[in-house]
């Protein structure tokens, strides 16, 4: 134990782990949606820091750029464009059944990942040396070029799917019933408008 504690990386790791677990816990228990997202930011920043600790600089800054810079911003954007309650959320359903179910799923996932990691690596000594970006680029575009291209095609398919779902063709609008009630919105764009209208009526400030 004393040997373990003498490595400064381990102390940094423990601090990061405590902060991440705390932030993750708060992000699922917080009664305010925006607070939950902000705690998620802390947890994600912690995971970026873990990657830095392992010398995986590129992955670390990708986490910052993609998750904190884009995904979280889109989360917040989505919450704020629909309804952004200040203070405690009262409409969240925290029934015991869902809590227990969520806890079981989370525990099972944790067990699965830790077993897989321990089986895979065991006591292997890990040398944390920074990965050079050109090495990373070469291995992606030489050895792993086919999986890389497959992933990009999958992403393209997701992109096109998103456009198809969100898009409303001019002729299809005529088929919709003319006096459209706000509650029965069929397309995402009207959905957003409807929820935004509702939050404005409710007066959330």
């Amino acid at each position, binding site marked *: 134990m004393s040997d373990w504690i003498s490595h400064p990386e381990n102390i940094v790791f423990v601090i990061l782990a405590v902060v991440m677990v705390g932030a993750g816990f708060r992000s699922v228990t917080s009664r*305010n949606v*925006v*607070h939950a997202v*902000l705690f998620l*930011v802390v947890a994600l920043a912690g995971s970026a820091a873990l990657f830095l600790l392992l010398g995986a*600089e*590129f992955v670390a*800054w*990708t986490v*910052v*750029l993609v998750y*904190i*810079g*884009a995904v*979280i*911003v*889109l989360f*917040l*954007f989505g919450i*704020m*464009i629909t309804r*952004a309650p*200040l*203070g405690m959320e009262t409409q969240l359903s925290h029934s015991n059944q869902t809590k227990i179910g969520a806890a079981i799923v989370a525990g099972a996932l944790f067990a699965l990942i830790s077993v897989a990691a321990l089986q895979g690596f065991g006591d292997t000594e890990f040398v944390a040396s*920074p990965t*050079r*970006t*050109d090495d990373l680029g070469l291995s992606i575009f030489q050895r792993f070029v086919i999986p890389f291209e497959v992933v990009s095609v999958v992403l393209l398919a997701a992109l096109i799917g998103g456009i198809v779902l969100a898009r409303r063709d001019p002729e299809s609008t005529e088929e919709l019933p003319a006096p459209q009630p706000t509650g029965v919105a069929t397309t995402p764009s009207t959905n957003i408008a409807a929820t935004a209208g509702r939050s404005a009526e409710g007066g959330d*400030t």
Partner: protein
Amino acid sequence: MNFWLLLLIKVGLVLGVMLPGALVIIFGELKISAHMQSRIGPYFAGGRFGWAQPLADGLKFMQKEDLVPADADDRVYKLAPYVVLMGTLALFVVLPFGPETVARDLDLGIFYVLAVSSLSTLGVLMAGWSSANKYSLIGGLRAAAQLIAYELPLVLAVIGVAIMAGSLSLNDIVTAQANWQWFDTLPTWVNIIPPYMILQAVGLVIFLTASLAELSRIPFDMPIAESELTMGYLTEYSGLRFTMFFLGEYAGMVAMAAVAATLFLGGYWLPFVSDDVLNFVGPVVLLTKVMLIAFVFIWLRWTFPRLREDQLQTIAWKWLIPAGLANIVLTGFFKVVF
């Protein structure tokens, strides 16, 4: 030298460059805008030319009461300015001021710049939401939509430079520009032209436009549009926290201009000067280029009217991004052919 001592010196130097730089640009904005409108601008503060006006303004802001609206989300509201400023300040870590004068020459340089500068968006959204004010919320939303849209052209513009230099490290990019040779048939004085300013001219224009939008400056200031949103996400802020946002905007100008100067104008590099001399002259050269770009920013601000939201999105998605993609294809093509 001791690690912590060195860290302290570096942090001190960054603040020592960033804060006076921001003050100089604020003063420049006051004076240049005045002269563009046939006014004199600040005249009395400090004796000559009103040079102490930005300092006086800053001191005045700091003395104001730090108000927090009763309905506001206290902690998020107070944290937001720090998050915005952090994204800007962290950027200075990789900026080379000379061949060896750099806080940390990361292998990933420019990628790191793009990653940390995206943190500011988060702070803006936090500020807009936590103020408990409709104007702030709409301002925050507009800012987020704008920053997301203009981050893409910013990245695309950078890729052209990265392809040409063959590296992501900012120091290597400067070295690549310094070692660039134009054709032998041309006279040697041609080598004083920063190569990427000509060869990546498309990238430079895209980068400057996108960074104006990232900084939410006129003509891209929909998020704070005074005539419709009071002051957007800044509406409720006062005192020291407002000063931080205000300073953050101008520090952001220094930072973005410094990145643009490094990528496209050769950074600290000066033609026909050896590396030993550049270690001392480099910071001055870089700051001169920064001030030139900042002048262009100010010039544009007092020349163009504000864009409408749809025009703003059209410019990003229909003009800048396709132009950026075409620039990458062309750059890649010529890199392979020559």
